[in-house]
Every structure is written in structure tokens, then in C-alpha cells.
């Protein structure tokens, strides 16, 4: 494990040398002080004016999670088949914002776009996790079920009750993630929280931004009070009713998009020139077209994405290794523990996209904002988890008194395996985030995809998204291999 860790640290060091990490704004500290003073003087009444965006954020997240969950259950039932697994890996490899980019020209900037952008990647994630939960569930109850019972009866009596609790917890966690996804979809123009956040940050209206962010934290912190299993069906029905009021879908647009606009430019070129809009299948020009995109944009984008990901991977690890003791009972007192716990929760609750936006405002465009945004978000998740795990360790009576010895000899060896497994588990997530933050102006894949969309070159954007998805699936595969080789698992075993 140590050897593998050091190899990754080495890679990250090389990546740092290759990365552009400079601060390009002239007065970062001045901007910072304005932000801090904004954070301490939140203009809470302003939230009322933007209540509809808050509402949309919740509605999109509800509908997206629900649809994703239903699709996920369906896919999980066939998860033993390779094509289904590949399909799920593919749809979840594409970030919600990229999905929104795809749907934008099809359905327009409306609720359907927002809901689908969440539902589709979530379906892939749900399918995978639900299938894992079923696989690892207690099989003994199934033995008592008559062998001739219908598959559905078998599922509802022998499987569902057994997996219900785990499934419920995971789905609730995913709903929290969906709220984050929904909020940041506002940054590309959908009517959610991010839409106004972007304006406020751009205009330097930090008190207003702070008010919206605080509302968002309260929304998530209050989930356990209003997200009751019995009320969920009511919420979902309401959300869909609200949603259906503003649905306008032109099938003509949809077909045109899928049968014409996404086709590579060379196939449409002749038709556009002579005004007939016919499609011609020309192999060499298509190949040339793809090659050009690969050489001029994709290659550079992939390279930058990988460099950023590798820095962030190790950065996240270091952050959590240094950070978790502060929230762990074996190292600090109760008060410090509590403070750090809540701090980690706040950082973890802030979508990385918003963190990146804040840092971008402070430091100007370079990889630096992206590094810190992804690192803090993931680092907070991992530090929180590690400190919880470390708290479970019962130290023997004669354990070393010196904290540094305790850390290296008692606690770290016990939790390092799971820590590493979880870090590698998040690798793919970090890469997805690295790619997407290109939208904010660093030259990762998201940058090229965003500019292709802005130039109305949908075919190019789709090809680049395809490259992104394949890269992600590749990382997912490598991550699984590393975890298997090191024989580490995200399931905790302290002994």
C-alpha cells in the first residue's frame, strides 16, 4: 500500500510541475476581504425574492432522483449482463452539466433539461449501487421462499425487505447530491440557485451570495426533518405536477437533433451548401474531422484533465490525512471535534463547482481554483469519514500518549486500507469534476466542450463528451484494478 501511495505522490509531483497554478488577479486579498465581510453580513431577506429558484432546485432534484431511481432499479435487475453494466458505466461517466449541454439544444433551457440531466447519470449510479446492495445482502431468507413463487413475489418478500434500509439510506444520500447537482445546473442557465449565485459572484454582491448559500446549507441540514419516507410520494407527485405545467416539448426538435444535428459536420456539409439538408456518408472526411478534433482539442483537454486529476487525487488524500485527526476523539478535545465536524460538513455540502467559482473570483483563471475546489470538497468527505472510522477504534489502555505516535502506530495503520480504497473510489468522481471545471475557463475537456456548445457545434461537443466518458470509464477500471490488487475495500474492518 505504501509503495502504491508513493508512486501516486510521485506522479502528482510531476503533474504539479506541468500544471499552471499561478494567481493572476491583482488584488486577491482585497477580494477575499470583501467576500469574508459578505459572508458575515448575509442579506437574508433577499432570499425571498429568489424563492422560486430555491423551489426549482428542490423540484429538479426530486424528479431527477425519482426518475433516476426507477430507471436504476430496472437496470439493476439486469446488472449481471455486460452490456447493461457498460451502459450504466457510460451514462454515469458523463457529468450532469454535460448531460444538460446535450439536452439544451433538444428541449431548450427548461425543467425537462434539468430533470433529465440529473436522472440519466443517476440511473447509472443507482443501478450499480443497488445491484451491489442486492449482491451483498443476506441470502438466507430466500431459502425459505417456495421455489415456484413468481419472480416479483420473491423480490417483494425475500429481497426488498432485506435491502430496504440500505437502499433508503443511499437514495437519501443521493438526493442530497441531486440538490447540489440541481443547484449548479443554474450556472449554465437553468432556473435554479446557481443562476443567481453566478450573478451575485460576478457582480461582487457577496452578502446576497452568502444569503443564498446559507439557505442552501439550511435546506440540506433540515433534510432529516422533512424528508420522511411517508411524505416522499406526496413530494414527488407535487413536483411532477409543478413540472408538467411548463413542459413544452417539440418532437420535431428532438428527432431533428438525434437524426441530424449530432451527425458529424462532414456528413451535413454538402446538404447545407446546396440547401437540401441531405446527409451524405463520407468516410474519409469524417475521419479527418475526428482526427482534427482529437489533435487540436481532445488531446490537450485530456492531458490537462489527467494532470489536474492526479494533483487533486493526492491533494485530497493529504488533506484528509492531515485533517481527520482534528475531528477525531483520539487527538483533540470535544469542542475542537465538534467545530471541525461541522466545518467539514459545510465544506462537503458546498458543491465543488461553487467552490471553484469562488476561488476563480479570488485568483483568476488557472488550475489553482479547480485544484482547491475539488480537493476541499472531496477532502472534507474523506476526512469526515476517516475521523468517524478512527473514532470507532478502541485504543488499548497502554496506547502511546504522544499524539504523533498514536497517529502513526495505532490509528493510521487501522484505517489506511479503507481510506485508500475510498480515495480510489472517488478517483473517477474527481476526474469527472476536473473535466467539468473546464467550463470555468481552465483548459480541461469541459472548456472545449463548452466552447463547442457556445459555437453551436453540437457534433463536436458530442464527440468530445464521448472522449470524456471513455476516459472516465478507463479511470474507473484502473481504480478497480488498483483496489483489487491492494486487496482493499471501502467496507470498514477495524481490528
Amino acid at each position, binding site marked *: 500500500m505504501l509503495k502504491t501511495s508513493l508512486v501516486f505522490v510521485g506522479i502528482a509531483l510531476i503533474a504539479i510541475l506541468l500544471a499552471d497554478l499561478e494567481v493572476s488577479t491583482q488584488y486577491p486579498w482585497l477580494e477575499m476581504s470583501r467576500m469574508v465581510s459578505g459572508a458575515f453580513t448575509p442579506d437574508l431577506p433577499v432570499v425571498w425574492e429568489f424563492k422560486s429558484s430555491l423551489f426549482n432546485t428542490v423540484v429538479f432534484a426530486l424528479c431527477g432522483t425519482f426518475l433516476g431511481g426507477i430507471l436504476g432499479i430496472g437496470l439493476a435487475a439486469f446488472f449481471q449482463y455486460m452490456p447493461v453494466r457498460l451502459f450504466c458505466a457510460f451514462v454515469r461517466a458523463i457529468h450532469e452539466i454535460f448531460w444538460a449541454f446535450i439536452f439544451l439544444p433538444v428541449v431548450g433551457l427548461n425543467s425537462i433539461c434539468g430533470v433529465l440531466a440529473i436522472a440519466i447519470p443517476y440511473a447509472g449510479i443507482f443501478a450499480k449501487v443497488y445491484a451491489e446492495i442486492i449482491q451483498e445482502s443476506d441470502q438466507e*431468507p430466500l431459502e*425459505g421462499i*417456495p*421455489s415456484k413463487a413468481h419472480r*416479483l413475489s420473491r423480490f417483494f*418478500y425475500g429481497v426488498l*425487505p432485506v435491502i430496504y*434500509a440500505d437502499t433508503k439510506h443511499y437514495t437519501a444520500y443521493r438526493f442530497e447530491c441531486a440538490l447540489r447537482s440541481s443547484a449548479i445546473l443554474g450556472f449554465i442557465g437553468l432556473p435554479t440557485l446557481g443562476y443567481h449565485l453566478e450573478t451575485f459572484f460576478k457582480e461582487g454582491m457577496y452578502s446576497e451570495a452568502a444569503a443564498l448559500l446559507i439557505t442552501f446549507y439550511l435546506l440540506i441540514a433540515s433534510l432529516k426533518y422533512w424528508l420522511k419516507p411517508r411524505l416522499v410520494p406526496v413530494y414527488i407527485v407535487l413536483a411532477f405536477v409543478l413540472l408538467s405545467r411548463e413542459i413544452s416539448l417539440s418532437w420535431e426538435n428532438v428527432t431533428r437533433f438525434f437524426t441530424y444535428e449530432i451527425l458529424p459536420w462532414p456528413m451535413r456539409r454538402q446538404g447545407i451548401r446546396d440547401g437540401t439538408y441531405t446527409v451524405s456518408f463520407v468516410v474519409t472526411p469524417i475521419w479527418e474531422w475526428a482526427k482534427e478534433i482529437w489533435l487540436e482539442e481532445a488531446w490537450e483537454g485530456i492531458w490537462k484533465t489527467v494532470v489536474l486529476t492526479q494533483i487533486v487525487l493526492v491533494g485530497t488524500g493529504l488533506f484528509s490525512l492531515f485533517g481527520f485527526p482534528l475531528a477525531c476523539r483520539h487527538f483533540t478535545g470535544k469542542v475542537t471535534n465538534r467545530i471541525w465536524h461541522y466545518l467539514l460538513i459545510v465544506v462537503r455540502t458546498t458543491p465543488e463547482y461553487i467552490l471553484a467559482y469562488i476561488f476563480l473570483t479570488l485568483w483568476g483563471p488557472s488550475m489553482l481554483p479547480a485544484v482547491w475546489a475539488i480537493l476541499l470538497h472531496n477532502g472534507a468527505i474523506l476526512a469526515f469519514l476517516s475521523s468517524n472510522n478512527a473514532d470507532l477504534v478502541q485504543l488499548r489502555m497502554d496506547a502511546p500518549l504522544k499524539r504523533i505516535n498514536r497517529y502513526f502506530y495505532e490509528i493510521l495503520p487501522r484505517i489506511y486500507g479503507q481510506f485508500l480504497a475510498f480515495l480510489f473510489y472517488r478517483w473517477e468522481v474527481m476526474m469527472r469534476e476536473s473535466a467539468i471545471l473546464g467550463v470555468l475557463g481552465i483548459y480541461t475537456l469541459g472548456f472545449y466542450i463548452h466552447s463547442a456548445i457556445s459555437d453551436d457545434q453540437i457534433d463536436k461537443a458530442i464527440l468530445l463528451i464521448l472522449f470524456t466518458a471513455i476516459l472516465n470509464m478507463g479511470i474507473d477500471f484502473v481504480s478497480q484494478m488498483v483496489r483489487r490488487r491492494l486487496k482493499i475495500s471501502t467496507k470498514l474492518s477495524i481490528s
Partner: protein
Amino acid sequence: MKSDTNSPLFYLNQENVSYKDTVVLKNVTLEINQGERVGLIGPSGAGKTTLLRMLYQKVSDQSAFVHQHYALVPQLSAFHNVYIGRLDRNSTLQNLINLVYPREKVRQEIIPILDSLGIEEKSFVRVSALSGGEKQRVAVARAIYRQKSILLADEPVSSVDPHQAGAVLELINQVAETVVMSLHAVELALKYAERIIGLHNGEIQFDLSAEEVTPIMLKELYQKS
């Protein structure tokens, strides 16, 4: 020539079962007829469970099985666990409705069974909250509710209080025509089974009527290494 009605329910001819390297059943030849009450005895690891499972696989549609480890769904109530015994007889829709809202008719079928086993008041308690003995009685109730002519039971009273065990076995004998059960309490086997099969290391040591079994045979069966 034998007529169909007289042919044995089970007929095993020199059957062998092994898992990986260990032989579990050796050369087992056995006939069980309709209406018989068979008790399987022998030290642990003798192959009783394997033999019972083998019998079950041959007649799974016409029989009910009481699992050694109950095989209950811990998250469902005792009532629903008993209902599982007839999942294959009712339509899927009925099954789904029953999960949410049990009809009166079904209640009246199941609750008396739980009553006769002394756990009526636990009918709508989650199985995970029941004691070991109560769980075992739920497992027996499920097998009874299945209403099959053959009942196979693997240690059906191992966790039930000794003073209640007899009543449970009595009930099992009442509801099924043919009963094959493994029991580690030999005195229960001798009392509630008519035919006793002694197993040791996967081999049949003796196969006699309950009256013919002598204390010396039992001593030998359990003391052999």
C-alpha cells in the same frame, strides 16, 4: 409388480454426496413410504441436513421444509413470514396486496396457526425482534401454512423451550401425512417418530422402528469417533 399407490415416496439408491474433498453422504440406500414418521438422529456432522435437503429437492413442490436456521425475512412480521409459505399458490397481485393490507380471510388462516404455537400476540411483530425460540416457531408455522402432505424439518425444536417442544412436534405430526425430521434430542425422536434412522459420518448405522432402538445402539452411535 407394485402398484403406483404402494411405491415409495422417496427412493434413494446408493447415493453419495461430497463437497470439495469431504464426503458428506456415503452409499445411502433408503425408502420412505407415504404416511411414515421418520426421525433422523446422529451426532453433528453426520449428514442429517444434507440428507433432508436431498429429499426436499426431489419433492420440493409437494413438501414444506423447516430450515435449521429458520430462513426467515427478519424485516417482515411473523404473519408475513408465515404467508411466504404460500407465495407460489397465490397470484403475484394478491401477494403484493397482502404485503400492504392483509385480507381478513388470510388473517383467519394464519393467526390460528401462530396461536396453536403460542405466539399469536407476536403476529405483527418484526421477526428480528423475536427470540430464537419464537423465530423457530414462526418457521414451523410457515411450513404448516404451506399445507403439503410431506413435511421435512431440520432440527425444528432446537431453540424451543423443552416443555413446549413436544407440543410443536405433535402439531407437525398432525398436519402432515409424511414427516421426516432430524432431531438432536433422542428422547423426542423416539417419542414422536415411528421409525428412527441413525446416521454417522454420512452412513446409515441403523434404520429401525422406534421400539427396536436400544440404549446400546444409541450409545454406540454417539460415541463412535
